[in-house]
């Protein structure tokens, strides 16, 4: 409704639209620089990646030739492909989960902009500012076998506690995913606070008058209305985790063994060896995972936008 009236009003300023001919209005010229950049350095590489993944392309020859699924076969034979996919999915899932549970919890506790709350918000936002490398180094030190965490555990547990958190494949993977979440939970918190602030207060009051307790109000009123903030955090969390590399480089270097070698790290390794074809293949896998996760969530976001 509103959009048609708006369009009608705007019509007074634009040349009448002639069908089937390209008559750029000012809109086009204003968007053009951004369009060129996005097409040249996002869309084209994104599409080209799908092509390069099926080519024989190395640093040792200037020829790029098609080789079908050869890159994927090579990676599968090396045991890199399936393993890296699995590691990446676990990493993204753990990180996204911790980020959102933590962010939602903090947002609920700190929604009101009181003075104390503002101090706490500021404190919990600090890790967002730290670079991924810095986060990786700090936590590698905290989690070291003789490090502060184990010193603390030794103090409260009988008989001392020595465990190499980053030395065991499973705990190392969970630990680096946790560091990723640690770094981003402050941002998820702010997005959820913004979401909570966008909910009209009357809705809670109405629900309370209708006899809904705090728990019911949380699940039946807050959670559904927080859906846009939720989708935003989930997509950004997962996509961020998919291209995460710095935390892992700093904390484990991809090890122990290849326990934390996510796709992005594996791709960098192939690239580092001059194997651009296989590196592209791994990059394509990241892109496909991203598309499969992001598209349904984006369309859900857009549907909601229309409704609101």
């Amino acid at each position, binding site marked *: 409704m509103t959009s048609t009236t708006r369009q009608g009003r705007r019509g007074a300023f634009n040349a009448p639209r002639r069908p089937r001919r390209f008559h750029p209005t000012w809109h086009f010229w204003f968007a053009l620089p*951004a*369009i060129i950049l996005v097409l040249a350095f996002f869309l084209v*590489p994104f599409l*080209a990646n799908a092509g390069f993944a099926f080519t024989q392309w190395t640093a040792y020859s200037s020829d790029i030739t098609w080789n079908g699924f050869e890159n994927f076969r090579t990676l599968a034979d090396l045991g890199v492909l399936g393993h890296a996919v699995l590691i990446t999915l676990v990493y993204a899932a753990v990180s996204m989960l911790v980020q959102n549970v933590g962010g939602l919890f903090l947002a609920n*506790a700190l929604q009101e902009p009181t003075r104390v709350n503002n101090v706490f918000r500021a404190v919990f936002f600090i890790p967002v500012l730290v670079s*991924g490398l810095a986060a990786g180094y700090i936590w590698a030190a905290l989690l070291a076998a003789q490090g502060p965490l184990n010193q603390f555990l030794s103090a409260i547990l009988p008989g001392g506690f020595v465990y190499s958190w980053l030395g065991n494949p499973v705990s190392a993977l969970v630990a680096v995913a946790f560091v990723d979440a640690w770094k981003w939970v402050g941002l998820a918190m702010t997005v959820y606070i*913004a979401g909570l602030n966008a909910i009209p207060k009357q809705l809670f009051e109405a629900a309370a008058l209708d006899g809904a307790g705090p728990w019911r109000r949380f699940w039946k009123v807050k959670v559904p209305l927080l859906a846009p903030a939720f989708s935003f955090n989930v997509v950004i969390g997962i996509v961020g985790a998919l*291209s995460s590399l710095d935390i892992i480089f700093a904390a484990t270097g991809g090890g122990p063994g290849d326990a934390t070698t996510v796709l992005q790290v594996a791709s960098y390794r192939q690239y580092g060896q001059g194997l651009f074809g296989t590196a592209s293949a791994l990059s394509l896998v990241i892109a496909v995972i991203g598309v499969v996760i992001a598209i349904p969530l984006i369309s859900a976001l857009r549907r909601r936008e229309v409704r609101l």
Partner: protein
Amino acid sequence: MSTTSPMQASRLQQTLKYIFLGIFAVPWVAVPLWMLLVNSFKTEGESSVLSLALPTEWAAVENYTKVFTEGNYFVGLGNSLLIAIPVVVVVLILGSMAAWAYARSNAMGLRVTFFISAMSIMLPPAIIPTIFILTKIGLQGTTWGYMLVLTATKVGVIIFLAVGFVRTLPTDYEEAAQLDGAGRLRTYWHVILPLMRPVLFTGAVMLVIGVWNDFLFALFLLAGKANATLPLTLYSFALAPTGAVRWNLVFASVVMTSIPLFIAYVVLQRRVLSGLTEGGTTG
């Protein structure tokens, strides 16, 4: 403010909440920061113990001097500033221009490019073809190429945030400016840009954090010590020769690479958080 429970119960609840949050903040934020700082003041041998204790022998001056001399720090700082500032400014301008156009147009072509821009935030970047393109145009490994790619991959964030914001603005101001004879560029600069300030501030915060800390693109797209940004100087310094990690130097280097953003945060903290929590993020 909106609590419905009786006063006393809610006060007790509040107190318990803050005690809990305080206890939570200790391992979550205080211990990591303390770990970082205190170990950056220790000697190499003492820092390798990785404890939270105060140094028995202070080596702060030596450590930080090493970061400045061996760690390539000022080159990294200079490059980071020379890259981050123009990139953020250009992204804000190009993004807000495009956002205004997208918000006020229903043309099919623009709807498609808006969708692609929104996708660019949500999908992981394809780095190897990017390198291919930069190599073709002779910019691979250079600061210019890196800045171009950063600008292109970040502009979507501003477009996405600002389009949602502009759509909620009435068109009256722009129309008044047009009637007064202002051209599109003047209207943009004097009317639209000031109106967008809150959402652009929010966007700028996210941009600065993302650009300043970028390691992924920097690793692939920047070559050579002379072009290194702070994350790259930190990484190469931490990797440096001997094999064993020199924790005191790594931490001193982490402190120095984080400090510029921290100073900005301390100065702007209130605006940063109120911008992020009230403005546009859900737009």
